[in-house]
């Protein structure tokens, strides 16, 4: 990979992807939990999730639990692959620097 994936490269989106990748495949994470894990605000997290959803890396589901609205998100297959490629890209940079230094 010559250039980092611009969608994942943004720090908050990178953390979102990392947090979702830590879950078992196809597992959902509630928006409120993700917000607490990342220490993000509603608006900020919602905007970045929207970008990831448009890229097809994340899917969201809205429903009601005991009459309360609930939003859940999870990584898609494409999201997992993109994240793994991005991590490989980061590791490559670090390893190259270690070898040359």
């Amino acid at each position: 990979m010559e250039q980092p994936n611009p969608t994942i490269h943004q720090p908050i989106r990178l953390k979102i992807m990392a947090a979702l990748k830590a879950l078992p495949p196809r597992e959902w994470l509630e928006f409120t939990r993700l917000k607490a894990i990342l220490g993000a605000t509603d608006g900020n997290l919602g905007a970045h999730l929207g970008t990831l959803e448009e890229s097809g890396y994340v899917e969201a589901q809205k429903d009601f639990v005991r009459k309360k609205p609930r939003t859940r998100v999870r990584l898609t297959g494409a999201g997992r692959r993109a994240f793994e490629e991005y991590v490989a890209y980061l590791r490559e940079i670090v390893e190259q620097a270690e070898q040359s230094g």
Partner: protein
Amino acid sequence: MSMTNSNAARSLDEIQRAQRRSAAAYSYQKASPHLIVWGVIWVAGYSTTYFRPQANAAVWLILVLLGVTADFWIGRRAATESSHAHGRRFAASLLAAFLFFVALFTIMPPPSGAQVGAIIPIFIGLCYAIAGIWKQGLRFVLLGLAVGALTVAGYFWLARFFLLWMAAVGGGALILGGLWLRRV
């Protein structure tokens, strides 16, 4: 858009931190209902054993069966959308613990019921502490230490009321611990 070595290393650290927090929160969320169920069972079991010691064996048998059934039900609900291995792993863990105690009490039969009532919670506390160390879940470690320490304290300093102590403090610690794990 290129990246320096230090930026890449910092991003990898941030990824690791986010993954650790997310994995711990996920484990807490999954463990929370199990803890609450077993907290209620401890409250019921230890208090019944204190007030009606003659019914001890039957009551614990019924309660443990109820607890295992509840664990299966919780595990199945959790498995509907993620891994079906969750329920199976939980059942296998319970079976392993059961076989351990059968072997332990066959080799070293405890002279008193209070000793049985103390050893099992200490073992459970140990399991939580070890799980916390391996899963990097500090709350599991603290909960395990609390259950172990409260059990030892009650056994030595409140021997007369040990069963009531375990009902209120041991069971209460599990219930409160379960509620605490729900919070991120």
